[in-house]
């Protein structure tokens, strides 16, 4: 890029443009063509914000809620929401409901594959839908909190606070899962038919937030995001954040890598973007929509947000032996354009592909976020600290068992 002037913008300059209704905002899909035509420098001059989106099951999610004090008061020691156990090891009337929690009487995998029709993710969806949720709680009773039990109905509106606080969302890239074995597998990556019957993936590819800012230069604590149809925030690196995986020349990770922890108020979310899901033979989860705006502070960010499906690859991983046994092995690389075509080649065999994530929803999220910003209703949050990047020496360690 010799001889070309560098483009530099700040968060406050872009926010000032948003306030005046002058910001140029495009989706990560639209950005591909712009970078192609005008190059990174031209694109960086033209575009201020690129919006991204992703929608899929995000198991490491859950909601904190405070339901207010009963009369007489109670310090809850065990609690259930519609029969699903919520963690009560917090102050008197605070709970955390995790999306993979299932009712104690659920038949699980006793008849394999289990159906897992209702769990924590469904409780969260029901709350957002405005439905009544049955709260049962027990306590041992103290001088200040004498009550021994409550059994009542709650609704989202009547709760004091209820917010998603998700330890790990929006994985930057994910495995393409296959089954080399002889029997059908039921996994968190969906049903995998024997002998390479299908190949399942789970990423929005070119629209995916962390794939558009591969070194997390604009994403970290305080980044304002779209979450579940509401505005929310990134609150730090997610669990298993692993920026040290191998990257392509374009900086894009070639395997599951970065993650982020997120926060968002349930009041204001929409079930369209927050869905309780049942993963047959595996358990329950929550399909969640997340969108991150990426400010184009310089031409490098224009370049990275211009990434397209064929420039993003992932690894083909066997879920019959390798994955469950912790064997790190790849049966080759495949890009997202190939994955979205419906068929890929593995060891000379044509294999049908399916996604667990939703591309149409990812598009809608990126579009919605774009409208919010263009309408002056959403401003960029400058991160106080960005997620640890490739040079941070952070990696994902297996457990040492003694």
């Amino acid at each position, binding site marked *: 890029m010799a001889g070309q002037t560098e483009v530099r913008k700040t968060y406050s300059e872009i926010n000032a443009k948003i306030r005046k209704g002058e910001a140029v905002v495009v989706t990560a899909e639209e950005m591909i063509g712009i970078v192609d035509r005008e190059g990174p420098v031209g694109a960086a001059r033209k575009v201020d914000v690129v919006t991204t989106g992703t*929608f*899929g*099951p995000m198991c490491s999610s859950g909601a904190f809620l405070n339901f207010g004090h009963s009369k007489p008061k109670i310090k809850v020691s065990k609690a259930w929401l519609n029969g699903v156990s919520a963690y009560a090891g917090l102050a008197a009337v605070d709970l955390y409901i995790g999306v993979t929690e299932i009712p104690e009487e659920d038949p699980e995998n006793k008849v394999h*594959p289990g*159906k897992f*029709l209702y769990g924590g993710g469904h409780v969260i969806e029901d709350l957002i839908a405005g439905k009544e949720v049955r709260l049962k709680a027990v306590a041992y009773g103290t001088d200040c909190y004498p009550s021994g039990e409550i059994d009542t109905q709650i609704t989202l509106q009547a709760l004091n606070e209820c917010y998603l606080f998700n330890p790990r969302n929006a994985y930057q890239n994910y495995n393409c899962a296959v089954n080399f074995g002889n029997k059908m597998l039921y996994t968190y990556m*969906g*049903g995998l*038919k024997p002998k390479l*019957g*299908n190949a*399942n993936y789970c990423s929005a590819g070119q629209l995916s937030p962390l794939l558009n800012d591969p070194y997390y230069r604009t994403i970290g604590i305080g980044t304002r995001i779209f979450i579940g149809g509401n505005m929310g925030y990134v609150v730090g690196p997610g669990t298993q954040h692993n920026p040290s995986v191998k990257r392509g020349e374009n900086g894009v990770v070639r395997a599951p890598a970065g993650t982020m922890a997120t926060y968002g108020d349930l009041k204001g979310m929409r079930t369209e973007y927050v*869905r*309780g*899901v*049942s*993963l*047959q033979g595996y358990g329950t*989860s929550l*399909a969640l929509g997340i969108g991150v705006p990426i400010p184009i502070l310089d031409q490098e960010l224009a370049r990275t947000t211009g990434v397209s499906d064929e420039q993003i690859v992932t690894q083909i991983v066997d879920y019959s032996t390798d994955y469950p046994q912790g064997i790190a092995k790849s049966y080759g690389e495949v890009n997202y354009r190939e994955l*979205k*075509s*419906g068929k890929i080649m593995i060891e000379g065999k044509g294999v*049908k*592909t*399916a*996604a*667990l*994530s*939703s*591309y*149409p*929803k990812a598009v809608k999220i990126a579009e919605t976020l774009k409208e919010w910003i263009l309408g002056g209703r959403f401003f960029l949050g400058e991160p106080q600290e960005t997620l640890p990047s490739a040079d941070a020496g952070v990696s994902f360690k297996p457990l040492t068992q003694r």
Partner: protein
Amino acid sequence: MVAKKVLLRFSNSLISKPIVYRLVKDYNLAFNILKAQILPDEEGEMVLEIEGDRACYEKGMAFLKDTGVEVLNIDKRIVKDEERCYHCSACTVVCPSGAISIDRETMRVGYDPEQCIVCELCVGTCPPRAMRVEIV
């Protein structure tokens, strides 16, 4: 009068014989072929909508079974809850009938009940449980 949807499975040796035609000729039944598939070296499959007098219908089905055709009543149908479907595509690789399709441009997933053979494989596969069995 009855109007029923049935799935017929033929073995290889029966494929070449004009069995289904006899339903009209000998049993006075009217039918619509909703789907027919004959796979080389495998069995043939046919989904019919059959209409006629109840007694004739029973006799016609008994005739089919006698000739060695497997007859499955499809008294259920699969409905897609469009509001719950979020267009992932997990169901597209399990559907054996071609009832589920995907538009590769938009990546939206479509469902054609006419082609559905009610195998129910999509029901458990769909994460938000958008595909549901309905008794008709």
